[in-house]
């Protein structure tokens, strides 16, 4: 087994990044103009990187599949963004945020990267404020904070329940500024379908123009993937329905290792599935757990309406099981606890797959107005979708697929195992271990894009200043384009009877049942077999419209579902390999007598990075051993 080199700088944890910056190679302004960088994705990470690189003077080409960069899925993040400002004087510090993230990630993330993410968090907030992001303020005119799951300080900055939207629109504005200055060229409605490697270095991508169907070649000195996660693997998830891992997957098949694919966060507070036609699940921000109390009836199959159930017949199971953190336990713990209650027959609602999130006590104490100011738009969302008025009756919630901690393996430079290919934001694996804490996704994506990648990519490009603009006439582009066209033609020529969505739904069901909140060997093996059969069925019975030179949304879906079969297979392999429980990855075979996740540090304190070795060949596992120098590895307890 190869040892992976994470290229972590020497020296004490708190000095690594400063030292790195001081010694990183630089590119002078005249040379920057001659260097092209492709950024795929326009979320906080992608658009942040594109605008930051544009400001530095690089020539940036930025791609997204939506009609405009402002719609990237960062827009939907609700709750907030963490920073260690310690404006509340409650004892916060960079170290504390770092510690919370390491512990929250169940000791499966890389110390140096996590520390750096915490370190740049303050810069991110300052930058957003300067760009006009209207964060919530107190009466003194200062920024307000709230607390989020899994921590004991208030370090979360927010803009009502629309923090992601406000941060993304701020980032979109900085992107627009660079577009106006000619440093960034925007390519919307493009889907990346292949990565181009020349002489071992990443030199471009092949895209499909989603309007004309044209297959296009784009070259650059380096490529950055900021393409998000693979949470839609469950079909129903909190993600935008078009979110997909295809770009990252193409890179993986070209040689980029994929790390910890089975680490996927199931968010505890989503609106439960209401019917079989449903195309997505809507998240209710975790911030609601600050004031809402989660409970189920103490009696099984209690059919009374919630408000008729007296206090002593309610089981506030999180407060009961985890007195120290109560309703604010981390997401993986809260999700599993909800599943446990529902599986045991205490679930509520039509399907029994829901628990109550109740604001009665908070409204009594703080008044309806105060609650409305904090959560008004979320309550409204709940009312629109479910018809429940949370001011009067408790919300129904249930866990849903949400965020992927796993992703492309990157070193300290955020570079994948392919030279010149970088991965930032949710698409990489590095900062959240086996479970992500609330309000740290926006933080990490922005930190990667605005403040970290610009340094590390310059360090890489400094060795490439003599390379002239890359021509797209190279044989490698020719070959890549050909393989993309062949695959599209293969998809349209199947000419069967079932739609891409129907396959996606079935794939999602398999993954949710056997590789979701709780996993075991037997189930995973079964899933592997089922996936194989379903994949064969897909490749023989798919139906999509055949026109390749037109808007063809079914073709887009089909391509993504085809990739999902492969992602799913690797995810199952990874879950099988990791026989311990950690964070969101819960192997039933590895639990404490109280049913909590039981880690196996002796055998699994490593990042599992998987190498693709060819169609239908087994994956090769590479291990990056995790060393904890600055935190003591402990049992992760929230009791």
């Amino acid at each position, binding site marked *: 087994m190869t040892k992976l080199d994470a290229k972590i700088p020497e020296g004490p944890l708190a000095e690594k990044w400063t030292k790195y910056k001081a010694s990183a190679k630089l590119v002078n302004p005249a040379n920057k103009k001659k260097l092209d960088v492709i950024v795929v994705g326009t979320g906080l990470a992608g658009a942040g990187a594109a*605008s930051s690189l544009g*400001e530095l003077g690089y020539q940036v080409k930025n791609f997204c599949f*939506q*009609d*405009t960069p*402002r*719609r990237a*899925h960062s*827009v*939907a993040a609700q709750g907030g963004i963490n920073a260690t*400002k310690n*404006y509340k004087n409650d004892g916060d510090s960079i170290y504390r945020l770092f510690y919370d993230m390491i512990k929250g990630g169940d000791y499966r993330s890389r110390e140096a990267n996590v520390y750096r993410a915490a370190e740049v968090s303050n810069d991110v907030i*300052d*930058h957003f404020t*300067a*760009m*006009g992001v*209207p*964060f*919530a*303020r*107190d009466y003194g*005119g200062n*920024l307000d904070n709230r607390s989020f799951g899994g921590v004991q300080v208030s370090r979360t900055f927010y*803009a*009502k329940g*629309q923090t992601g*939207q*406000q941060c993304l*629109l701020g980032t*979109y*504005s900085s992107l*627009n*500024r660079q577009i106006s200055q000619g440093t960034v060229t*925007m390519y*919307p409605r493009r889907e990346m379908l292949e990565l181009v490697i020349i002489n071992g270095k990443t030199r471009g991508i092949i895209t499909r123009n989603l309007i004309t169907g044209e297959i296009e070649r784009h070259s650059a000195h380096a490529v950055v993937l900021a393409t998000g996660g693979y949470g839609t693997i469950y079909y129903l998830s909190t993600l*935008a*329905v*078009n979110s997909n891992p295809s770009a990252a997957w193409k890179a993986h098949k070209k040689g980029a290792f994929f790390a910890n694919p089975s680490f996927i966060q199931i968010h505890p507070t989503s609106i439960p599935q*209401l*019917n079989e*036609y*449903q*195309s997505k699940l*809507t998240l209710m921000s975790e911030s609601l757990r600050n004031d809402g109390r989660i409970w189920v009836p103490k009696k099984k199959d209690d059919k009374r309406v919630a408000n008729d159930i007296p206090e002593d017949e309610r089981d506030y199971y999180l407060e009961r099981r985890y007195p120290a953190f109560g309703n604010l336990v981390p997401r993986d713990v809260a999700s599993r606890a909800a599943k446990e209650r529902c599986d045991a027959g205490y679930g509520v609602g039509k399907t029994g797959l829901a628990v109550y999130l109740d604001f009665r006590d908070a409204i009594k104490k703080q008044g309806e107005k105060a609650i409305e100011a904090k959560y008004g738009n979320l309550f409204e*969302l709940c009312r*629109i*979708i479910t018809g429940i008025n949370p001011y009067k009756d408790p919300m129904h919630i249930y866990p849903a697929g949400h965020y992927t901690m796993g992703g492309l393996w990157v070193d300290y430079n955020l570079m994948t195992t392919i030279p010149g290919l970088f991965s930032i934001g949710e698409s990489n694996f590095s900062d959240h271990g086996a479970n992500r804490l609330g309000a740290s996704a926006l933080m990490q994506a922005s930190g990667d894009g605005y*403040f970290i990648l*610009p340094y590390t990519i310059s360090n890489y490009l400094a060795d490439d200043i003599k390379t002239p603009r890359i021509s797209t006439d190279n044989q490698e582009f020719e070959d890549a384009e050909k393989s993309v066209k062949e695959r599209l033609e293969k998809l349209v020529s199947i000419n069967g009877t079932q*739609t891409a*969505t129907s396959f996606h739904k079935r794939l999602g069901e398999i993954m949710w049942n056997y590789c979701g909140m709780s996993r075991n060997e037997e189930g995973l093996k079964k899933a592997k077999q089922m996936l194989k059969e379903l994949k064969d069925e897909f490749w023989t019975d798919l*139906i*999509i*419209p055949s*026109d390749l030179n*037109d*808007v063809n*949304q*079914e073709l887009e879906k089909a391509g993504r579902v085809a990739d999902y079969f492969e992602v799913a297979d690797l995810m199952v392999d990874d879950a099988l390999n990791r026989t311990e429980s950690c964070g969101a990855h819960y192997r039933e075979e590895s639990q404490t007598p109280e049913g909590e996740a039981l880690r196996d540090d002796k055998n699994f304190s490593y990042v599992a990075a998987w190498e693709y070795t060819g169609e239908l060949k087994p994956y090769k596992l590479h291990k990056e051993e995790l060393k904890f120098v600055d935190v003591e590895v402990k049992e992760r307890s929230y009791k």
Partner: protein
Amino acid sequence: MKLTLKIWRQKNADAKGKFVTYDFDGASPDMSFLEMLDAMNTKLIKARIDPVAFDHDCREGICGACGMYINGHPHGPGKAITTCHLSMREFKDGDTIYVEPWRAKAFPVVKDLIVDRTAFDKIQIAGGFISTNVGSAPDSHAIPVEKRKADEAFDSAVCIGCGACVAACKNASAMLFVSAKISQLALLPQGRIEATERVQAMVNKMDELGFGNCSNTGACEAECPKEISLVNIARLNREFYFAKIQ
């Protein structure tokens, strides 16, 4: 539910479009409007008919991708919601539903219900930002902002760029959209520095792109899924005149 859907079909920007009638009896009141269209499209695909193309992504009212003109209203019946939040409960068995794309010179039809809204991006590119470089920001508390103003800026900043305001307006004006950005940045001290140039650049761009004039009818406000208020337009006008006399 049995429905008669009259849907605008148009192959591309240059082709002539027309309403095509589909009798569809697979709808259920539990579905969202987009899920109903998904179900209808599945039927079309299986019958080897090109499905109806429409933009959508988050399906939770925040990305601004979805947007159709349904029975004469942008985003359909229902107040302050996007098309993706429109529920089939709003319709009855036997209803006839007209579905069209946004109609505006500045938003050419791409295909069926998809329109090209890049004109909105162009207006933002003209000046919808604060010129501050990464790494140059002072501490966030260096400039306190009055809570009332910060809240107002937030209320303007929630615009999702869907284009319903333009579709609702008989002049196809983009004033509500533009004024939302102008207001957000004008209300914050950080945005004041460039306020003069910004309002001129954005308004000029809007005119250049073929959006119509504002005649204060207020249809935009009534149809806006995010309840962006007309007060923003008043603020834009004030900013614009101040900029002129400066």
